[in-house]
């Protein structure tokens, strides 16, 4: 495909994503069994587009894409750089692997409504992808709502008693978050009259101390923090992710919060700018405070959980804490660590939820029900162990590299709160995960018929692929930092 065509992939990812999701639903009218294969093909196609876009960005550097050829501030622009192209690729990969891995389970659970489920599935990732690529503040809001609304609906699949109620709670909080964001954008618009990120950022520097801008800043920040589940705005998260259908949790848990975390970086570094956020509004202290609180709260509360997936939700909260704390420390190594951790965390959390889901299917949702699961399904368990070790931060897993940069950055800034919190939470996570390992590992039985539930080859393949993704992210940590994270930081004018 020619180079110019590839540029158009930036918008094709979103428009075709929307289109394909409706076609997927329309497949129901022809033949219901076509929906799922068509969804797989669609996501495959979108992954391909995303991949070529990523290659293009790596080869030729970041570029802006004007929708309909209208340059900003009149038109909507998409901005594609190494970081969001890579993240978008990760989103599609995770969605693809997750769908392939859980094909049978989707059919089993949502057989008669598979068309709608698949349409939501594609819409969700399309929304996330749009959030990543867009350079327009209002466009971001719309795509955020697309991702959120489909997310609410997807999360309601699952345990009939719990899931809809948990999801409705999420609707309330999610809407407040999104509205706060919108409100913040409104304030920025009052002052600047623009919605394009670059344009706004240029105009803001001329009026640095305006209280209107400050209000916008605060509203946007709180709005996104609610959406990304940062402590103490996390209340919706554990319940929504715990009670939902397993394959949905392994889709939304790794992607939803991380994409919102990316938005934080985008907004702070590219709209408000580093000097503005850190020096004038002293974001550093606030983010450090929230980040450290989230790390400690997540790590400690996770220890008290009896439900495996709920425990993992608190691990997610801890990880979000790392990302925000790194942002709070604010020097180059800490932010590098935050961003690297963000990328790695997509792979890690995905692998963790996917393999944990496999264990849950084989045993039960409670941690104490895991007894003997290592013997029952050695393969799934070993991938679970791999992902857990990565979360703990055992080298050379990806989790280690993110933590290393975070620790180094906080040490350079002499921010011992963050330093101590990260070390402590690593230790607590060790205890946490080894508790589950103990349940799974001890309790040996000799009966030979003690095997896993019938699991298809594609399910094993998916779990393996998620494990490989984690391993790869670990081995490629240095190139990822060099080619993806660092250019982003350079453009953000961090030294």
């Amino acid at each position: 495909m020619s180079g110019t065509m590839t540029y158009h992939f930036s918008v094709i990812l979103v428009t075709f994503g929307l289109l394909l999701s409706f076609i997927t639903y329309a497949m129901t009218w022809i033949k219901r069994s076509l929906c799922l294969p068509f969804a797989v093909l669609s996501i495959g196609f979108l992954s391909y587009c995303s991949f070529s876009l990523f290659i293009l960005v790596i080869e030729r550097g970041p570029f802006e894409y004007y929708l309909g050829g209208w340059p900003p501030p009149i038109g909507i622009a998409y901005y594609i750089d190494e970081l969001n192209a890579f993240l978008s690729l990760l989103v599609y990969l995770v969605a693809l692997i997750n769908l392939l891995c859980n094909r049978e389970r989707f059919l089993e659970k949502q057989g008669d409504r598979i068309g709608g489920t698949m349409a939501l599935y594609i819409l969700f990732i399309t929304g996330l992808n749009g959030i990543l690529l867009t350079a327009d503040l209002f466009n971001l809001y719309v795509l955020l709502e697309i991702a959120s609304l489909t997310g609410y609906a997807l999360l309601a699949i699952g345990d009939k008693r719990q899931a809809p109620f948990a999801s409705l709670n999420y609707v309330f909080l999610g809407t407040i978050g999104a509205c706060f964001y919108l409100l913040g954008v409104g304030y920025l618009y009052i002052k600047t009259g623009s919605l394009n990120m670059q344009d706004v950022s240029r105009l803001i520097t001329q009026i640095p101390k305006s209280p209107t801008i400050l209000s916008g800043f605060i509203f946007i920040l709180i709005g996104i923090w609610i959406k990304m589940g940062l402590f103490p705005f996390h209340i919706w998260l554990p319940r929504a992710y715990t009670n939902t259908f397993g394959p949905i949790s392994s889709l939304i848990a790794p992607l939803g919060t991380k994409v919102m975390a990316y938005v934080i970086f985008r907004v702070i570094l590219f709209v408000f700018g580093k000097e503005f956020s850190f020096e004038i509004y002293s974001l550093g202290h606030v983010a450090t405070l929230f980040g450290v609180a989230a790390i400690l709260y997540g790590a400690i509360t996770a220890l008290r959980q009896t439900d495996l997936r709920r425990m993992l939700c608190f691990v997610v909260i801890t990880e979000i804490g790392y990302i925000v704390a790194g942002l709070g420390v604010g020097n180059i190594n800490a932010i590098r660590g935050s961003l690297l951790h963000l990328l790695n965390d997509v792979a890690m959390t995905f692998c963790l939820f996917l393999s944990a889901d496999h264990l849950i299917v084989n045993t039960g949702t409670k941690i104490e029900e895991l007894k003997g699961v290592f013997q029952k399904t050695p393969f799934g368990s070993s991938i679970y162990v791999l992902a857990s070790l990565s979360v703990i931060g055992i080298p050379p897993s990806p989790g280690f590299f993110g933590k290393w940069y975070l620790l180094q950055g906080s040490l350079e800034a002499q921010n011992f709160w963050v330093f101590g919190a990260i070390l402590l939470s690593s230790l607590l996570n060790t205890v946490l995960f080894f508790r589950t390992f103990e349940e799974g590992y001890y309790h040996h039985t000799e009966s030979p018929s003690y095997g896993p539930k019938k699991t298809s080859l594609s399910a094993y393949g998916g779990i393996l692929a998620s494990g490989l993704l984690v391993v790869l992210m670990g081995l490629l940590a240095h190139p990822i930092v060099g080619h993806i994270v660092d250019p982003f930081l350079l453009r953000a004018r961090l030294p």
Partner: protein
Amino acid sequence: MNEIYSIRPLWVVLISLCAVPLIISTKRPNLRETWTILAGVLKLALVLSMLPDVLSGSSFSFNILTLFPGLPFRLRVDPMGLIFALVASFLWIVTSLYSIGYMRGLKEHSQSRYYAFFAIALSSTMGIAFAANLLTLYIFYEILSLSTFPLVTHHQDQEAKASGRKYLVYLLGTSIGLVLPSMIYLYMRFNGLDFRFGGFVPAGGANLPLNIACLLLVFGFAKVAIMPLHSWLPAAMVAPTPVSALLHAVAVVKAGAFSVVRTILFVFGEGFLEGSWARPTILFFASATVLIGSLVALYQRELKRLLAFSTIAQLSYIVLGAAMLTEHGVKGGILQLAMHAFGKITLFLGAGAIFVATGKKLVDQLEGLGRTMPFTFGAFFVGALSIIGIPPMGGFLAKWELLLGSCQSQYMGIMGVLLASSLLNVAYFIPLVYRAFFPSFPVEGKIREAPLFCLLPMLATALFTILLFFFPYPFAQLISGLWSQLLGG
């Protein structure tokens, strides 16, 4: 000194890892154990193939990846690493043979898992031996901790669970909580962590953060079991005996001692430690460990626990030797790393052989067994003499060098510690062996010698313990090479 860029060190590390899929996928025990032995022999051959070049003063190195700017994942074979690799890879073969006898004799479960994790543990031990910088060492160190966990808790019962917990809390807790921050601090300060004989930390020992970093590293490598971070080692004795033998006499504990020696000689070095207060602290704790460990060993009723406490005491010899920072001290410390391995593995294999043959674990139960199991106890006696340090056993050489070293250093008290410890060693080993051969009451029969697979490896290591006294050539040569590097560089 020239450096040879070669992939060979990586192969040494990978070869047992490559054997893992074969071990897991093979259904037939005979074939499975053939793979283990084959990998062991290949590994030893590869290590040996590097010996002539390293003896002539060159070193092998191989870059695998870049982890952080200026911090590659790199392997480098130097004399000290080669000594450790030689000992560990040779003893792996011996222990594998022994494992076959032991595991089959006791009809243990999950033997495939056992051999697989053993292979992984060995791979990471080789990685530790050949690590070219602190981070590479740390990575393999962590893998070693994790891969030995299923081995320690092999029985999967309540006792194993408690011990496994202790094992992990001590090893992972210290490595994450102490080593990692210290390492990051050093990297931040010096932009690299490459080992250099003599240390990369500049001279001037008064610097407070660096002193703390040094202590964090020495205590953080808790595999060396310096008190008060020692209690995982006796707990880990719930493992099957071959595991105790190889891991808790050779691979794991020596990996800890090796890491500490690397820290002392290759990270901080004489220049820094000379005037620091970290060094007296290390010497103090190591001396205390030597004495207390030996004293506690006196009161142990269980044979394996006794050996564990003896190991704790003996490991601190190595730390003492390195921290003395004198020529003979360092030589003695590194010799001890090799000599103690041979002596102690003989003792552990003996303990295992007794358990396989008679099911007895306690010291009191050994009375008179020497009559019916002369070979086992003969080998056991040789091992004990080597640990005590009586010629003509290899252990004597190490102790001799250490004593010489303590004469050279300003800390004469260490000599007293070493001598006192030797006396204590005599006190807990000799009565044991004596009563085995000369029981105070007549013993009933029915007990036979241990199975051949157990007996032969043990006799082999006992023989080597004696041979090493007469022919310490490769080790001594390597150590001299190491020392001349310091003088040359």
